[in-house]
């Protein structure tokens, strides 16, 4: 009998120790930390649980969905161009041109846009290069390319942020939504149908792009800065989340930019000219941004008025001194 009880307690002890063992391994798998004499980034953690989840999200969800979305966007734009064609000026050009974008606005636009394209190409190379460029360039060739792409991406990123913030500051006022924008959206901005919905200096579509750029751009910038400085000992989880937000926002931006570039170049007659030379034809202004055009005309009339008044008064002064 005594022996039997002894046996039972022994069994109890051993199953307890087996349970402890299971417990510790479960905790380790969940990422519990301990002590390590080796210093370094999270060197006291045996297993990080989020690694394989991040891998799945990057390789399957982001790369897979992203490729589909990019392809669909390009197809949709091509299809739209085939069906709708270019949005032409409905009346002949007046020959008179008014200023739409100042010199500094144009510089800022193309500064940020070139950096954006550079960042998009180099960023996408890191994501898709392995499947698209390696068969083409070989492992050695692609590695050399990717090395440069990574350096360009990591250093030009912060420069893009500078442009983004400046755009946000100078175009903020023009991009606040108002009631006119509702009608603009309802009539699809005149892209579908033949209406010419009213718009101020920025139409509702431009405003939507502005806000997408600001929100996704800020996300891309913050997370990009974080990815740029892995020397700050961030937890891997922070880097993984940063990477996911960075890539998802980057895709939103790239898709938005494709639409933006389409509308600004082949999609609309006269738009690109405006951003390059800074001036647009009055006909273009009246068709696309009637409220802004009106305001502009009123302002010129006022300016002319006050200027002629000034002229009159200086003439009087002049004549006064002559006497």
């Amino acid at each position, binding site marked *: 009998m005594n022996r039997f009880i002894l046996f039972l307690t022994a069994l109890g002890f051993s199953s307890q120790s087996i349970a402890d063992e299971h417990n*510790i391994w479960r905790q380790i798998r969940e990422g519990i930390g301990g002590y390590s004499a080796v210093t370094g980034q999270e060197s006291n953690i045996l297993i990080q649980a989020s690694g394989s989840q991040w*891998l799945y999200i990057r390789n399957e969800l982001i790369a897979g969905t992203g490729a589909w979305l990019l392809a669909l966007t390009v197809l949709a734009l091509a299809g739209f161009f085939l069906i709708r064609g270019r949005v032409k000026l409905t009346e002949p050009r007046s020959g008179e041109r008014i200023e739409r974008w100042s010199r500094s606005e144009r510089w800022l636009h193309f500064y940020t846009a070139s950096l954006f394209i550079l960042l998009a190409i180099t960023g996408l190379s890191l994501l898709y*290069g392995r499947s698209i460029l390696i068969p083409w360039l070989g492992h050695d060739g692609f*590695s050399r390319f990717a090395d440069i792409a990574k350096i360009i991406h990591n250093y030009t990123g912060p420069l893009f942020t500078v442009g983004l913030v400046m755009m946000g500051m100078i175009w903020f006022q023009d991009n606040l939504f108002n009631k006119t924008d509702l009608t603009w959206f309802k009539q699809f901005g005149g892209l579908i149908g033949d209406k010419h919905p009213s718009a101020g200096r920025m139409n509702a579509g431009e405003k939507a792009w502005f806000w997408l750029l600001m929100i996704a751009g800020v996300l891309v910038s913050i997370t990009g800065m974080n990815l*740029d*400085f892995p*020397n700050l000992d961030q937890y891997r989880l922070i880097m*993984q989340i940063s990477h996911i937000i960075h890539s998802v926002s980057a895709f939103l931006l790239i898709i938005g930019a494709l639409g933006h570039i389409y509308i600004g170049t082949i999609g609309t007659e006269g738009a690109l000219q405006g951003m390059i030379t800074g001036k647009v034809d009055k006909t273009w202004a009246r068709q696309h941004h009637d409220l802004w055009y009106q305001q502009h005309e009123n302002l010129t009339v006022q300016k002319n008025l006050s200027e002629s008044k000034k002229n009159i008064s200086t003439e009087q002064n002049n004549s006064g001194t002559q006497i």
Partner: protein
Amino acid sequence: MARMKFLCDDERCIECNACITACKNEHEVPWGVNRRRVVTIDDGQQGETSISVACMHCSDAPCAQVCPVDCFYTTEDGVVLHDKDLCIGCGYCFYACPFGAPQFPQDGAFGNRGKMDKCTYCAGGPEEDNSEAEFEKYGRNRLAEGKLPLCAEMCSTKALLAGDGDIISKLFSERVVKRQLSQEQQDPESRQVKLWGWKTAYKD
């Protein structure tokens, strides 16, 4: 074909850190890079558990799947190696690896981390076996000399085992069974050999 594995017996690891010293010395691993480390859970409490960990040479390695330049390869022995000439130091392998094995030699500002370094299972790299270039980049190639990884070879308690996965796992399970039996053996008259492990050690 043998698949090389590491196995660490947490009942035996005494956190002496000799495996780490051996590794650093054998391969002349640069400052700040550690291919192996020992982690102690519940340090200082009764029942603390120490485990030595390095690259586990995964079968379907996450690092290899995520690498943008595809620089990993698995040898015939199942060892996961990488080509430092291709690596661009993006750090993605470190984010994907469950065991924190990939290490980087540089400080990392603006993403400049240098070439990734990790445990090679003492099997060198893509360069010619035991060449100077191989030693420079990856350390000694003991496998090519017919030797097993140094960390496991010199582990004093034989907590760390290295070798063909089938063989070392059999070794380990026999050890576990014996240890369990000798723990349950409460009879002081018993002739049963007691197999050493922390739990048996504390009990005696």
